[in-house]
Structures are given as C-alpha cells and as structure tokens.
C-alpha cells in the first residue's frame, strides 16, 4: 500500500477527531458522575494521537482489537458515536444492544473486534484475526493493542511466539501510558524498555512517540507493510500518557500533579491546533466552527442515548447462541 501524505486535510481531520474523542470522554465522565453511566469507565484522554495515527494507517478490511479503554476506537473506524454513547448508558440502541457496556464495544463490520475486559486476553485473539486473514489470502493486517500492564501476561509470550512462527500479519501496539492501573512500568518488571520484549522472538520492535500522530502513523504504516509483505509481526511500544485515572474510581495517589502537567504540555490536540494555526490552514472562524461541530455532536450523542430505550427483559436470552432455539435452563 502506498504511504499516505500528511496534508492540511489530515491535520484538520486529526484535530476534529481527537477533539471529539476528548470531549466525548469528558462527557462520559460527567454522565458517570450523574450515574447515567455505571460499571467501570476507563477514559482515553491523552492517548488520542495513537488512534489518530493508527487509523490513518489502516486500509479497507484491516482489523483493530484492544482492551477495555475502547470507546473511541470504533468511531475512528467509522462507527456512529451515538451508538457508543447509547452502549455506555446500557441502551438497546448501543453497539452491543446494552449487553457490553463501557469495556466491550464491538463494530466488526467496521473492523473493530472489541473491547475486551480481561487484561491480555485479547492478544491471541488479535493474532487469530490475522491468522484468518492469512489463511483466506486477504492482504489485511490486524492492529492488536495492549497496555504496558497486559504485556506482562503469559498470553503475550505464547502469542508472540506463534505469531513469529507463522509470520502472522499482525502489529502489536503497546500503549505504554506509564501505569498498569496504579503500578508504574518500573515496578512491574526488571526489564525496560518494553519494546525489547520483542527481541526474544526476533520480532522487529521499536519505541514510538505516542503524543505525535505522524510518528505513530509512520511506525504503524511501516509495520503494517511488513505484515502485508508476509514478513510477520512487529512490536511497537507507543509511549503515551493518560490524563485521567485508570478508571473513574482511581484517586491517582501514585503520581504527581506536576507529572500530569508535564505531559499535558505535549498534548496532541493542542500541538495539532498549533500546527494548523502556524501554517494558516484554518481561520479563527473555521476553528470555532470545528469546535462547535464537536460540541454539537457530543450533545447529539447524549440526546440519542438518553432518548433510547433500555433493552426489554426478553433481550436477556437473545444473541448468546447462534442456535436460535437454544433451550436455556429456566429452573
């Protein structure tokens, strides 16, 4: 696949997308405090450049799979954000008809395969999606995301070994935001940096600046091309930072306010906007208009979700088995 140019249009799209994801998550946090969203809620704030750069590197038919910090990924692949907000509120119009909630978003038709709640459990699934593409002769790749915590699971080792053995078309992207919940990377292993974990499998690997969508795009594009050529997987350690706690119930006592401020100074959305202004790619009016569109769309998502119905109790038995008349035990 030819490498795409980074143009004015790219920047404007990145700015609008990233801003929307940020505002969407902020709204989700507000709705969580109002108890309209329940369960656990893990926000993507600060990590947006990873998704912007990655999505730009994806081609028709490519796949993405990640863990439970997963609200905005399907939107980047074309899912209707109103359905994501509806899922967060447990409504029947949600992407999983209200059965998945915050941690389990799915848009397989758009190439988004979840949305997984067990840390590291999605790693072999990503390799398996790639296995199917290879088996069926499709020229597609699977971007498989995990956190800096997940790569300490045994599932990483077994999957990395098999993916190299079979040269599966998969790109493993570690979103290293510095903390596995409240445990810093340095406290989880005697070995850092994380991308060196590829060495034991002879897997090409590198660190990537996760606050810069261009750096992410370049790295993911290069890895995806390697996979499409049949040369197998790559391990990217994409260094980023999450501004919010691990989940909404995290008091964040494991880090300082200064540390958070240090990263917010490198905020990808601000940097993107600065570039747009510096290059005169948009007037103040045009920027205001983008900001307004974002605000309106977030409001529309909330309106749609709030006006949607909760699933009827009869939905409980639906969509568990492909067999439509499966005889559930009803005591």
């Amino acid at each position, binding site marked *: 696949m030819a490498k795409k140019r980074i143009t004015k249009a790219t920047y404007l799209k990145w700015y609008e997308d990233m801003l929307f994801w940020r505002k969407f998550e902020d709204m989700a946090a507000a709705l969580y405090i109002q108890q309209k969203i329940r369960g656990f809620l893990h926000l993507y704030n600060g990590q947006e450049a990873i998704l912007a750069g990655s999505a730009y590197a994806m081609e028709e038919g490519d796949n993405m799979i990640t863990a439970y910090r997963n609200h905005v990924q399907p939107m980047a692949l074309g899912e209707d954000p109103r359905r994501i907000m509806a899922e967060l509120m447990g409504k029947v119009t949600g992407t999983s008809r209200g059965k998945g909630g915050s941690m389990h978003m799915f848009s397989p038709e758009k190439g988004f395969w979840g949305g997984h709640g067990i840390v590291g459990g999605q790693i072999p*699934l990503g390799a398996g999606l790639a296995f199917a593409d290879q088996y069926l002769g499709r020229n597609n790749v699977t971007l498989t995301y995990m956190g800096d915590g997940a790569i300490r699971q045994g*599932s990483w080792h077994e999957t990395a070994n098999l993916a190299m053995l079979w040269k599966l078309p998969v790109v493993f992207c570690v979103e290293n935001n510095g903390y596995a919940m409240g445990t810093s990377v340095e406290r989880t292993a005697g070995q850092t940096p994380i991308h060196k974990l590829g060495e034991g499998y002879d897997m090409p690997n590198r660190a990537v600046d996760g606050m810069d969508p261009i750096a992410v795009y370049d790295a993911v594009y290069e890895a995806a091309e390697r996979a499409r050529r049949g040369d197998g997987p790559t391990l990217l350690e994409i260094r980023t930072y999450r501004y919010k706690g691990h989940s909404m119930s995290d008091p964040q006592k494991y880090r300082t306010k200064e540390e958070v401020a240090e990263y917010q100074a490198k905020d990808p959305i601000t940097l993107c906007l600065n570039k747009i202004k510096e290059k005169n790619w948009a007037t103040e009016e045009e920027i205001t208009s983008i900001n307004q569109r974002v605000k309106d769309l977030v409001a529309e998502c909330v309106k749609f979700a709030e006006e949607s119905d909760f699933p009827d109790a009869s939905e409980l038995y639906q969509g568990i088995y492909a067999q439509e008349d499966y005889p559930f035990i009803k005591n």
Partner: protein
Amino acid sequence: MKTIQFREAVCEAMTEEMRRDENIFLMGEEVAEYNGAYKASKGMLDEFGPKRVLDTPIAELGFAGISVGAAMNGLRPIVEFMTFNFSMVAIDQIINNAAKMKQMSGGQINVPIVFRGPTASAGQLAATHSQAFESWYANCPGLKVVVPSNPYDCKGLLKSAIRDNDPVIFMESEQMYGDKGEVPEGEYLLPIGVADIKRKGTDVTIVSFGKIIKVAYEAADMLAKEGISCEIIDLRTVRPIDYDTVIESVKKTNRLVCLEEAWPLGSIATEITYKVQSEAFDYLDAPVKRITTTDTPAPYSPTLLEAFLPQVGQVIDAVKSVMYVK
C-alpha cells in the same frame, strides 16, 4: 455398516467435514506430523497439508486464543487438547472469549469452534491428569458440551459439532480410542442436545454419559440375572441437557440412579437430581442415588484409584437401594 475404532470415528468425522469446507482447520500439539498423540488425526496432514493441519508448540492459551480469533474472522477451527486437563491453561480463552463473544457483542460475532480431546481418568496418571471438567464447561452459558460414549455417537456428534455455529466442547477418552463399534458406511449426523436410551428397562433409570457408562452396562447385565431391569440413558450432551428423556423415563420406572466420573459437588448428576425432584417428585418411589468419584484428587496407586473411581458394585448397590431390595 462397518466396524471402526473410536479414534477412527474422530478422524473420519474431521476428515469428512474438512473435505466439505475449506475453512475448517485442525490445530494442536502433535496433530500433524505425529498423526495425533492418540492417532485421532492419522493421515490428515497427508491429505490436507500443513496449512490446514497445524502442529503447535506447547502453548494451549496461545493456540486456543488464536483459534477463537480465527473463528471470529471467518474460519471454523478444530482445536485438539492432548487432554482436557491441559485446557486449564487455556480456560480464560474458552470461558471469557469463545463463550462470551456473541453475547458481549450484542449477537454480532459467532465463534464456530470445536475444542476436543480426551477427558477424565486414563489409568494411573494421578491427580493432574485424571480430571473430568464436563460440569465446569457445562456450567458456562455460551458453550455446548458433548461427551460421546461409543464410535457411532462420536462420529455423528462430532460432525454436528464441527457444523455448529456455536463453540462446542467435545470430550473423548484415552481409554475409549480403541473401542470398536459399528457406523454406517455413508454420511450421518446426530443432533446435539438429544439423549439416547442405550437400554430399555422398566425398574430403574440409570443416567450416565461418556466412558463411565460402560460400568452401568456391566451392572445392568448382572442385575438382569437377578430379574432387575435397568433403563440406561446416555445424555451424550451435557449442555444443553435433554431433561425430557430423563423425566419421561423416571415417570415410568419411578427410580433414578446417576452415574458420573467426576467429583460430586456441582456435578451433572446433581443437576439431574435437582431437575427430577422438581418435575417428577410425585413419581419417585425412592430418593435419587448418585455414584461419582470420591471427593478427592485422583490418586496414583491402583488400590486407591479403584476406590476413587465409580465401580460396578456401587451401581448395583445403588440400584438395589432405590428398589429397596437386598
């Protein structure tokens, strides 16, 4: 009809289905070049090649998970565990991913996959290699669990399992692979979720499944000499369970003995007992009896293993007990 071994029934089912559908593949330890640890995939590498019959490293979590991902994205994997004891290191992939994917995605994603291999004891292999996890898997919504007891049932049910669009746990036995039985020359399928009355009888219903049902046959033969007629029901599938066949039988015999090679707590036997007291209470002429393994890990020594496993004498005693005869 022709007579084949149980392992040949497994092999024929997989081979016939893989000829029908190129999206089916077999993956597991020693399934290809070694022809299967128990020769259940003999000749399949030669016929289908290494793309469709894949040897794996010893990495059950990894290859089970990769197969679930492949099933999500259009393939129909058959995953062989050398024994279901080893499925414990893959159980997160089975329970959290294979079984839940359809429901968690709001019904969007099917996982048409078969996890198969031997279950329960296979001689003096001690605690880690002698476990029966049928009731564990049967406990989990999203799965189907099939446990055949002879070559005919095995072939027909395995073909159905491979064609099924839901994840199926298919449990065999090392000690059954050499068992012989008749199967039709032509193609046949057996439905998942339907029990089979292996022997008609009038006095007592014995419910069992898998390899241990042979203990019931032996007990029934001896009891027949004393004029006691046992009806033996082979559940064949333990999720879903064909309760109706069991309840109809109990309404006729008024007596029930459950025989299962598994630990007693939360067993299939316990579930059957609950359902029968709930739906046929007034038909019961005696309390239900269950024969299971002892409530201990499986031991190595032959004297201890004999005491651990259900024995013919226990079944005879249980039948006589529910009939109030000495």
